[in-house]
């Protein structure tokens, strides 16, 4: 039996309640920022406005830089994250943090009031008063300082800055470089777009005789389907994504990658992703001309870019692991292999996600290719069946109750934002009667049996345990930790359309697996939830739950 019972459900001890408190405070700050950015809009750039008004027009840039800085610092801090949280736990053992939360909330209320008075008239509404802007800045600064003090005492922050000054400086440089790169790309996208247009046009001429092109306005296509190459389609978004991915990947996996050889991947990756974008645009016109204009402009246009990026990134991972020129294999014991338990837990999920991305690129509106990904996932499960046969899949009746409770929460939250119950039946009506019956059969089978199994193996079988211990098969990986519980549940929720209901459901399934340490409990709970949703769809006509 590979999945052993839980041995310790206690908190890890060293971190105290800091992970929970910090998670809540970070969630609160993100929510506040989201609310402010959606609620209020800057005045927009205009040469007749004074300099401080011009500065407020760049709020989006400031947030981008702060986001990139936080992300880069998190990556650099990752090896010392546990140590950092433990030191915060010690520093806040007898620390009254909640008065700072009250002050933070008060300051945020002040910031909201100041922003409403200053920006409340909507975008482009004349000049902004200097005193209003100063009030916003003061309230914003107070909101941030009180938030920091709610997280930990000032002395702890001082020690953190002193210890991490190098990482902070690198993160700041990386964030500024990312922002400057974006600015340069936006300023100089035209030469890139011209090259993209030139090559895409040549590529399209291989299959079509009636290619039309207007380089001055970046339009090209055929007599039946014409596209305009917008700045974001010129290729720089892909170049930015590949550059960031390679920088992160080479940094995080530097122990198994041969440097400086692997730095060659930067020019290779940039050229490859640009060529992939050229192929995407040519294929977009081909699909629009020969198959469906709606599909080309809808599903394919939005998904093909992500598909090519993921394909290239996976290619880089493969060659840095397999090609001797890029791989530091000699630093590894040749007797090492990928843990087959990780393969069994993760590969079906990766196949499900990969096939989902591919089918999404070739459908528009109604998800008619759903059966394909279920077939691909079932084939993977069957291929790995010998591993699953060794596991303990026992379950308890309590997991049925947990699944039913998750269903009630899901439906309650779904009722707050009712969906379109007519869209999916309209899509089914476009199929023949027997085809529609087959599609519904696959949807029920996939939704109730396959997807819960695959998702639970990935999120509760692997992620929940991997976040609790570096060896996810070790007994200590089965203990309860706030970090693994919250992070795995939020990750599960974010990947579902209904992020809040998804997070709460993820928490319920995690609790199911914590009770006895059996993955089977989480799988059954998830199957019950999805089964009851399927009943709601088919019996009550709540088709939006499946749309």
């Amino acid at each position, binding site marked *: 039996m590979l999945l052993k019972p839980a041995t310790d459900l206690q908190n890890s001890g060293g971190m105290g309640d800091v992970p929970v408190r910090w998670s809540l405070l970070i969630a609160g700050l993100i929510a506040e920022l989201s609310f402010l950015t959606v609620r209020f809009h800057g005045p927009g750039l205009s040469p007749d406005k004074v300099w401080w008004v011009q500065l407020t027009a760049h709020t989006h840039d400031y947030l981008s830089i702060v986001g990139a800085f936080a992300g880069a610092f998190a990556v650099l801090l990752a090896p010392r994250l546990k140590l950092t949280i433990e030191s915060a736990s010690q520093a806040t053992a007898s620390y009254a943090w909640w008065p700072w939360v009250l002050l933070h909330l008060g300051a945020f209320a002040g910031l909201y009031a100041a922003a409403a008075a200053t920006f409340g008239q909507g975008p482009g509404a004349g000049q902004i008063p200097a005193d209003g802007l100063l009030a916003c800045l003061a309230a914003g600064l107070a909101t941030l300082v009180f938030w920091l003090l709610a997280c930990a005492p000032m002395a702890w922050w001082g020690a953190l800055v002193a210890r991490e000054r190098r990482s902070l400086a690198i993160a700041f440089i990386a964030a500024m470089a990312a922002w400057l790169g974006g600015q340069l790309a936006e300023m100089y996208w035209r030469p890139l777009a011209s090259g993209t247009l030139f090559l895409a046009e040549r590529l399209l001429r291989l299959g079509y005789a009636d290619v039309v092109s207007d380089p001055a306005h970046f339009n090209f296509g055929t007599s039946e389907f014409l596209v305009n190459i917008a700045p974001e389609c010129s290729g720089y978004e892909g170049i930015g994504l590949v550059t960031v991915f390679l920088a992160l990947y080479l940094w995080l*996996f530097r122990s198994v990658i041969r440097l400086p050889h692997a730095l060659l991947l930067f020019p290779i990756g940039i050229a490859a992703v640009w060529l992939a974008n050229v192929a995407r645009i040519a294929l977009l016109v081909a699909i629009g001309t020969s198959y469906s204009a709606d599909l080309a402009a809808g599903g394919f246009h939005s998904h093909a870019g992500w598909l090519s990026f*993921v394909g290239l990134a996976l290619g880089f*991972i493969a060659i840095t692991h397999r090609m001797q020129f890029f791989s530091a294999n000699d630093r590894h014991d040749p007797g090492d292999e990928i843990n087959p338990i990780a393969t069994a837990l993760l590969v079906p999920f990766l196949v499900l*996600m990969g096939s989902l*991305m591919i089918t*999404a690129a070739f459908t528009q509106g109604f998800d008619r290719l759903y059966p394909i990904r279920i077939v691909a996932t079932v084939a993977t499960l069957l291929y790995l069946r010998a591993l699953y046969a060794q596991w303990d899949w026992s379950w308890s009746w309590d997991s049925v109750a947990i699944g039913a409770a998750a269903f009630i929460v899901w439906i309650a939250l779904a009722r707050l934002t009712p969906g379109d119950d007519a869209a999916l039946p309209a899509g089914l009506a476009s199929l023949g009667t027997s085809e529609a019956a087959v599609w519904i059969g696959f949807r029920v089978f996939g939704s109730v049996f396959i997807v819960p199994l695959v998702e639970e193996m990935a999120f509760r079988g692997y992620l929940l345990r991997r976040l609790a211990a570096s060896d996810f098969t070790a007994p200590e990986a089965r203990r309860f930790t706030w970090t693994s519980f919250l992070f795995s549940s939020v990750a599960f929720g974010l990947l*579902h*359309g209904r992020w809040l209901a998804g997070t709460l459901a993820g928490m319920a399934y995690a609790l199911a697996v914590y009770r006895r340490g059996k993955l089977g409990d989480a799988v059954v709970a998830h199957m019950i939830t*999805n089964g009851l949703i399927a009943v709601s769809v088919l019996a009550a006509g709540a088709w939006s739950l499946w749309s």
Partner: protein
Amino acid sequence: MAKIISLAVALMSIALTSAAYAVPVAAPEIDATSGLAAMSVLVGVLAWVSERRRAR
């Protein structure tokens, strides 16, 4: 008091985020329509290939 404040922060986060962005309607399965799906594939593959052990 600390627990009440924690609860208040949690509820405020949910309320503010819900107010800012309407909760999207989707099926109870993973949504492929965002870059998050692409990132999850990459992170999943990286996690998978990093899980090495002594061959048996």
